[in-house]
């Protein structure tokens, strides 16, 4: 019989020397958090963060740094090439392309971001509740997801805009109706797994209400993949907003966004190709940066094994995320 069993210890537990190390609480600032976050992640994370930071910086500072009013026309100077005054030239109404890119980006990015946050929040809550309650609610949610995923979101947007007319509200609503489904699906899967954890069972046995379990245990513990998914979906949202604007159903004149600029540029593809290339590139870079962040969050960098100098393979994105794609 081992010693641990045969000696009956006498001391009261609170007289034992403490098992605690001294706690060192520290509140890191945003920058050091970012640096820490980038360590141990795939390189795409860092690149994406830098790119996105640049784009956002320009968009935030637009009211102060944009060289011209984006709506001021100068019909005498139509479709001009780059010059000192107009770095990216002018469009078919003589408006400054650089200024329009900056102002238009504010619309595109804001609408995509708002839609995405609404989608992520509602989708997560719906998915977590479905997993928690199970039964008919789960069935209803998952079948709705199946149905909604069948419709391309542009089609639903066209339908809603036909009913309610154009407007930012309609646009956001249209994108949300299909947009929550991948989040619900992802969250449901994660929540089912988390529901089987001991700490969830503990909360149940301790008598914590269901809402507490969902909002304080399940959702926080599923947040990492959901955030990664949010970043991955942002690019998709941005492109969809652009597509709707391109179809003339998104942002309405005199406002403009990158999609609308593409539409405007179409008749002048041969005379001034940069009119189409620039907003396209803006959409591309922004979508790419955010997607790279999402990828970086999703892919854990493989730790170099000490004795294996072989190249580190880049793992494919997790299937859970690919599965949720509506395209």
């Amino acid at each position, binding site marked *: 019989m081992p010693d*641990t069993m045969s000696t*009956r210890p006498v001391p009261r537990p609170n007289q034992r020397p403490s098992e*605690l190390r001294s706690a060192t609480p520290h509140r890191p600032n945003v920058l050091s958090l970012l640096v820490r976050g980038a360590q141990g992640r795939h390189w795409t994370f860092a690149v994406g963060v830098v790119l996105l930071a640049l784009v956002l910086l320009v968009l935030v500072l637009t009211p102060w740094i944009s060289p011209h009013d984006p709506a001021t026309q100068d019909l005498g100077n139509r479709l001009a090439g780059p010059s000192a005054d107009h770095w990216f030239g002018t469009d078919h109404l003589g408006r400054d392309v650089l200024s329009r890119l900056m102002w238009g980006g504010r619309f595109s990015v804001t609408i995509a971001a708002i839609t995405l946050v609404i989608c992520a929040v509602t989708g997560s809550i719906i998915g977590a509740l479905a997993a928690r309650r199970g039964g008919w609610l789960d069935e209803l949610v998952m079948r709705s997801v199946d149905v909604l995923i069948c419709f391309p979101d542009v089609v639903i947007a066209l339908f809603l805009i036909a009913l309610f007319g154009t407007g930012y509200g309609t646009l956001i609503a249209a994108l949300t109706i299909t947009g929550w489904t991948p989040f619900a699906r992802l969250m449901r899967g994660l929540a089912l797994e988390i529901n089987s954890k001991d700490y969830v069972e*503990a909360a149940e046995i301790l*008598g914590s209400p269901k809402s507490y379990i969902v909002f304080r245990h399940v959702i926080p513990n599923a947040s990492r993949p959901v955030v990664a998914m949010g970043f991955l979906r942002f690019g998709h949202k941005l492109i969809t907003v652009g597509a709707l604007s391109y179809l003339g159903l998104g942002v309405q004149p005199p406002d403009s966004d990158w999609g609308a600029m593409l539409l405007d540029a179409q008749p002048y593809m041969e005379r001034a190709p940069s009119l189409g290339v620039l907003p396209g590139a803006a959409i591309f870079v922004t979508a790419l940066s955010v997607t790279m962040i999402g990828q970086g969050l999703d892919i854990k960098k493989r730790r170099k094994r000490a004795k294996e100098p072989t190249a580190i393979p880049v793992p494919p994105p997790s299937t859970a995320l690919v599965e949720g794609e509506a395209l």
Partner: protein
Amino acid sequence: MTTSVPLDHPTVTEAAQPLLSLQDLVKHYPAGKGKKVHSVDGVSLSVRQGEVLGLVGESGCGKSTLARTILRAVDATSGHIVFDGEDITSAKGKRLKELRRSMQFVFQDPYGAFDPKMSLGTSLEAPLRHHGMKDRAQRQQRMLEMLDRVGIEEAILERRPAECSGGQLQRMVIARALLLEPKFLICDEPTSALDASIRAQILNLLVELKDQLDLTLVLISHDLRVVRYLCDRVAVMYLGKIVEVAPRDELFTNPRHPYTRVLLAASLAEQAGAEANAMVSRLRGEPPSPIDVPSGCRFHPRCPIAQDICSTVVPEISRPGQDHTVTCHFWDQVPHPSALLATSTRNPDE
């Protein structure tokens, strides 16, 4: 094998009222194709006020499911759970929430028992808040009181589970379970995930708290030494059924069910340093699947003394002694565990 363990907690007398009584409790899980997993399959058992009942059996025999069914973490398929004179089998809502205060659970794996994203303080405080302790200072005081009881310093409340040791976390699990002042505590292998050096501390803590707080304990374990050390009575479970229940000393000196005897023999073999396969040679094969349970006595395919009747007739409950029940056709013909231990020549206690 003499008593090398000091026995200083009183054995509960026959007269004590059962705090918990299970009547033919069944918990089946669907296994697809119309089949069922017979995790808990007709358990009748009572736990007396103030005692420590040991529940032993191999992994997968349904011990943990039984605990979860009693605690109403899962719903029973059939049968009754009577707690403190009240049938709680299908208690719901408010009643169930009140019940949560009186029966609690200590998890096997302390690392998984706390939300990794929450500080331990938040985890500990939540149940108090959910049970109507509105005053923050009061909650804080209650937590500190309990931390003191389990021997942990206040600073741990700031930490996350990943920053703590297994021993600390298991103390915290116990603290959390006891915050609500339950009278009944089920401990599911509370030490199996811990280092050997910590185990005795945790077990002693449990015994101490039991005495201080007037608890009734069910201790699930597959470690017979732990059971022998702590329990007043022992129930042996095999494949969803209780096969033998007896007071601790009676069970260890005069076991009647062949399964109990094989378990004891295996435990003796381990202590004697004999090869662990002494047990394997006695216990033929793996435990059968709880999906296709054997006919008759469930133990018959592995039983060293099985006869024809065992595969066809389910044995009745017999009473070899006062307060001792066994479910075996041949309980009076079972060889003693020391006789089963053919390979061991050394006496464990010399």
